[in-house]
């Protein structure tokens, strides 16, 4: 049985657990704990180690989705989780501009751990306070080549389209590496 993995990362309360829950065929193995800090009490529980979802591709292949803890004090988990990943998704809460800088930092950190393809999901686009995707692109300082995708983590169809876009990016990356020698590969962070 072959296994591959993708990582879902992003700031606290960006919707990573919900994203994995929407497509996982198993109940997400979650390490959520009650939040102790008043400053972070925008929800009752948060992921402290990782979330873990699974999609069986066929009888010989399984895709695992790992969600990282959002709180910075658990960032020692990030490097462990990023090892061997096919690519990663950075979830950003579109209605909380105060988390955009943190999202950018997480993106840069993950890209430094493993320069694999990634996409950015502008989550909670159904929230009336959500920023427009193109405004978020400027705020997050993402170049036009980086895929920034509208998403509602509770909506399976948008979650699927984010996963598919990441897979297309992985394919494109493979094709580039077929054509170019290693030192000419370009990844935009």
């Amino acid at each position, binding site marked *: 049985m072959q296994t591959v993995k993708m990582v879902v990362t992003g700031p606290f309360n960006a919707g990573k657990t919900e994203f994995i829950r929407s*497509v996982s065929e198993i109940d997400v193995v979650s390490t959520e704990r009650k939040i102790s800090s008043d400053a972070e009490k925008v929800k009752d529980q948060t992921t*402290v180690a990782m979330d873990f979802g699974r999609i069986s591709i*066929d009888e010989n*292949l399984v*895709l695992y989705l790992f969600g990282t803890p959002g709180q910075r004090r658990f960032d020692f988990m990030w490097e462990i989780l990023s090892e061997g990943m096919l690519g990663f998704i950075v979830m950003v809460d579109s209605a909380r*501009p105060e988390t955009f800088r943190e999202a950018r930092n997480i993106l840069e950190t993950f890209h430094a751990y493993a320069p694999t393809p990634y996409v950015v999901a502008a989550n909670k686009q159904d929230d009336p306070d*959500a920023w427009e995707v*193109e405004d978020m692109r400027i705020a997050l300082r993402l170049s036009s080549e980086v895929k920034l995708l509208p998403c509602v983590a509770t909506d399976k169809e948008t979650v699927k389209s984010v996963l*598919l876009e990441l897979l297309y990016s*992985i394919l494109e990356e493979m094709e580039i590496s077929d054509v170019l020698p290693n030192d000419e590969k370009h990844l935009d962070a």
Partner: protein
Amino acid sequence: MALKGNLRDFSITQLLNLISMARKTGTLILEREPEQIYISFREGKLSYARNGKDSAGLTMVLYRAKKLNASQVRIINEKAAGMSDKELGLLLINSNLLSQREILTSLQLYYLSMFNRLFTWNEGLFRFDNELLPPKDKITVRINLENLIIEGTRKMREWEQLQDEIPSLDMALRFSDRPGVNLRNLNLNVEEWKVISFINPKNTIHQIAKATNKNDLEIRRIIYSFIQAGLVELIRPAGPTLPPPPVQPKITAPQASKTEQKSLIFRIISRIRSL
């Protein structure tokens, strides 16, 4: 869709940069009790500004810019009551009282005075309204934001330094005990004299600012220069335990040929599509 938040989380320079880059048209509304400032943009350029719900009419703007004197203002108010700013502007130009350039420059300075104040705001709610445009009878301008952002960033740095030196406007001031120093011999400008006249341990800096009609940056600048000169002194008025990480399934990056890797990705794509 919303473009809103708090300047505490998304600074004014980031916000203006976004408006400039996205070439936005609409009005940015910023609120910090008790103030409310409206800044309008057209295709990413500053076009109009007003403080609160009421904007100063053209006559008052020109009077403040010393382009009109009090008697001229009185005559205009009597004879041109009910005229829009655009009509009044044309009347002033046609009667050779002011040139178009003088009117536009005065308006630009007025709009910029409000715009520049925002760089002293560390927090405050903001929202961008695409539908809210300047009133049709008002004269608008077109000012590129790039230089304003650079200049504003400089002001922010100065502001941060002044905040370090004068952390709170709730502090009061008293004259330093410096025998032999006669205030009358000091070379102060009118604004500085106004501030000096209110220095008293009973008055907070905030109260002095209000009485002399100065914003936070202006009052801090003046007080800082007094402190530096040794004239005045500031006085006070009165983790959860982590569970052991679950054992991670042993997953390794696929070590296969390019063709096999691509085939693997295609299999995943096909499966995700069918979910």
